[in-house]
């Protein structure tokens, strides 16, 4: 075996009683993509923070090219050629690409910055590594995929030879992810080494040559990707077998949602003449590349945005564009973004649990909220939906993504909804939580609720939906029976074939 470029040697890090990293040893060879797989809280981020000098390990050391990396010094990590691409981008929106890349690499005392040579170097890097980006474009005008390329260029510009990508596909569409994997393969062919952090099995299988699995702060296994199956990886990561969601056939009930020739517009997003019906006891999946109007459709059904034309009927009644009216009509709304829309992070679990119904007679009378009843309600959600938390008074910000989603599920399912709008309900969740959400959605289907599932995860759509429709540029295809569609036929529709707008 080649001499490793990076060796992580028995790294241990404790936070109080919690052992976040327990004697983890890993090595990374030149020209290799190592997947780092683990659920949220398995210790991936802690390990990378130690590698990057943000934390100091309690025990163990890190060697780059055989030389020990001084602990706790991000500068030393940068100088040793370690570059990190964070999940949440660290770009200044109002600066150009070139400014963002050069930012921080020049001395503050320089009279003027040498942008032309920087520009030439960026062009060269972009060409060598296949990262097409216009250097003078303003970052705010770039798509998410382009921004990620800028982040990677930033690392390369600083001569990174070991690239760490933290959940790089969390914000990408399937197409963009595929393009990213191609780019990464080109990188390693040129001699870079990559650590690819993810909790998505498919990506690890597609992108990596080797995978290390962390669970509960321990390295539980290291495998060659060619020697392992998805199911095995899932079991290693979670520590127990993961059941596949199974939707049993059942006969649909009454119409719970009917959209007729619905149109809406918000900025560059639009809906054109959408017609859609959801019956009780069925799951309608909406596929589509992100940004084709799915969020706007979801907002219209959530009551946060009004249709400009057409009608929206829930359970036989025409709906007003008001979140409260939608809740009262029996719509359970699972929003796309848990943190900014779903929950109020700085408030308690109790306060969040009743956010949709604090004015109802169940929780308040004459303008006063009965917090005792609210707490009982929150406790019932915590126990019924297995929300892991210190108690109903804990701030929601402290919950993991999966537990936050369970809390949202509990909040919206408590009142026996007729229609469930699930917008990206499993985005960013780990395998265990994903399985749990799927289970709950299917249980609601069994009880007779109609479900509108908007997702960018085609596997999820095909596993849960009775019918699938595709959105493209604000139009919606006719729903197709699940048995009649394949990933490739959906892919063609997602690319616009068969739509009137398609070129």
């Amino acid at each position, binding site marked *: 075996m080649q001499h490793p470029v990076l060796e992580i040697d028995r790294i241990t890090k404790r936070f109080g009683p919690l052992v976040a990293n327990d004697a983890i040893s890993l090595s990374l060879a030149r020209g290799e993509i190592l997947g780092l797989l683990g659920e949220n809280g398995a210790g991936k981020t802690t390990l990378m923070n130690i590698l990057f000098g943000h934390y100091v390990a309690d025990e163990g050391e890190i060697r780059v090219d055989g030389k020990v990396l001084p602990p706790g010094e991000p500068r030393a990590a940068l100088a040793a050629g370690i570059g990190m691409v964070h999940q949440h981008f660290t770009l200044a929106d109002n600066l150009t690409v070139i400014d963002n890349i050069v930012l921080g690499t020049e001395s503050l005392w320089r009279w003027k910055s040498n942008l032309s040579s920087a520009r030439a170097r960026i062009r060269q890097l972009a060409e060598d590594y296949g990262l097409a980006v216009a250097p003078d474009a303003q970052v705010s005008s770039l798509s998410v995929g382009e921004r990620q390329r800028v982040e990677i260029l930033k690392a390369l510009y600083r001569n990174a030879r070991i690239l760490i990508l933290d959940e790089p596909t969390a914000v990408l569409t399937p197409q963009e992810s595929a393009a990213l994997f191609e780019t990464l393969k080109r990188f390693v062919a040129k001699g870079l080494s990559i650590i690819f952090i993810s909790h998505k099995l498919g990506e690890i299988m597609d992108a990596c040559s080797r995978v290390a699995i962390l669970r509960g702060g321990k390295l539980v296994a290291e495998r060659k990707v060619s020697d392992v199956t998805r199911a095995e990886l899932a079991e290693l990561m979670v520590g127990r077998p993961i059941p596949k969601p199974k939707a049993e056939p059942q006969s649909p009930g009454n119409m719970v949602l009917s959209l007729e020739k619905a149109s809406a517009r918000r900025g560059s997003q639009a809906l054109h003449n959408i017609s859609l019906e959801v019956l009780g006891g069925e799951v309608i999946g909406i596929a589509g590349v992100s940004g084709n109007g799915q969020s706007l459709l979801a907002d219209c059904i959530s009551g946060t945005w009004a249709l400009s034309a057409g009608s929206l009927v829930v359970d036989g009644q025409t709906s007003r564009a008001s979140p409260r009216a939608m809740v009262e009509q029996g719509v359970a709304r699972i929003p796309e973004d848990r943190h900014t*829309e779903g929950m109020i992070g700085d*408030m308690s679990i109790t306060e969040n649990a009743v956010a949709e119904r604090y004015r109802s007679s169940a929780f308040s009378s004459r303008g*006063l909220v009965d*917090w005792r009843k609210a707490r009982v309600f929150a406790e019932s959600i915590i126990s019924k939906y297995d929300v892991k938390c210190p108690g109903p008074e804990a701030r929601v910000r402290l919950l993991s993504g999966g537990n936050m989603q369970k809390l949202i599920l509990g909040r919206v399912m408590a009142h026996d909804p007729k229609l469930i709008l699930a917008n990206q309900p499993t985005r960013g969740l780990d395998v265990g939580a994903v399985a749990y959400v799927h289970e709950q959605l299917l249980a609601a289907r069994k009880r007779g609720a109609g479900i509108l599932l908007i997702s960018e995860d085609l596997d999820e759509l095909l596993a849960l939906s009775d019918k699938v429709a595709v959105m493209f540029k604000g139009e919606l295809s006719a729903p197709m029976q699940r048995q009649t569609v394949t990933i490739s036929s959906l892919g063609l529709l997602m690319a616009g074939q068969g739509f009137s707008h398609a070129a």
Partner: protein
Amino acid sequence: MRLEPREHQSLALLVGYPVLALAFAAVVCALLVMLTGASPFQGFGLMLKGALGTQFAFFETLTRATPLIFTGLAAAVAFRAKLWNIGAEAQLYMGAVMTVVLGTGLLPLPWPILWPVLMVSAMIGGALVLSVPTFLKTRFGVDEVVTTLLLNFIVLLFVSMLLEGVLKDPMGLGWPQSKKVIADAQLPKLVQGKRLHLGFVIAVLAALAVWIVDRKSALGYEMRAVGHNAKAAHFAGIPVNRVLAKTALLSGGLAGLAGWSEVTGLKGNLTLDLSPGFGYSGIVVAMLALLHPIGVVAAAIFVAAVFVGADAMSRTAGVPSYIAHVMVAVSLLSMVTAIMLTRYRLRWR
């Protein structure tokens, strides 16, 4: 140097840091007192005595704290909902204007009726002043920091115009002042021969009322929700704009009460120096109190004690009374820093 968010805030932390902050402020101010040539121990001693040491001083401090409680509550209520009301000064003056318009003889009512009428009108006056910027904010997205701040000057000029015109006291020897409010409008003194008046008790009751609204009522919950995350509040079905409008009415109303209580309890009439910046100091009070309504009472008494005490110190020890402003400012800065440190941990690497 970096900041790491703390996952848990222990009680020791929550109490310890603010105490440390005030101690730090005391040390800084001691150095400043030394610069003027006075002994800091003697200086602080004089201050303490001047603010709390005698019965007279103590009542004087409470008198000074009364308008600060009202304006502090006004700021706390608004800031909790992230409505940045910097205009309590204007709202205070508008409350005072309403009080003298109705209370100087226009409504010859007995006190049990006149008091509530004047209180409600003062609240309406203050609330109206804040309603305009709030409407502009919710409707057109105009920044309320700018509009409420600038309204302070507009309202002060408006009051000046009234005092030179329709509200001018014909018996006032030409001074820009209004007539005195009638006897039935005046608040009684709490202690015979002292300036402390019933307004202080009403201010404390107002703080209790705000606290109950905050903890128990749906409105209090809505205001906190909107303040923490307006987008999520909207998604959950909380009518964000209506909540902001109600917040503005409450906040502006509380500031208006400050004007009412100063006129009916202390000054008797309206002049242009009714408030030496109570509206602005209210912001400091609210921040020192961490926006907690009961904390506002304590913070208002603290700030009032510093001002009253510094006056006494300057008379006796020759330290300029500007030290009061410095002390309040240093306390505020160290308190804000302490609050940050209860939420974040400082790492030197």
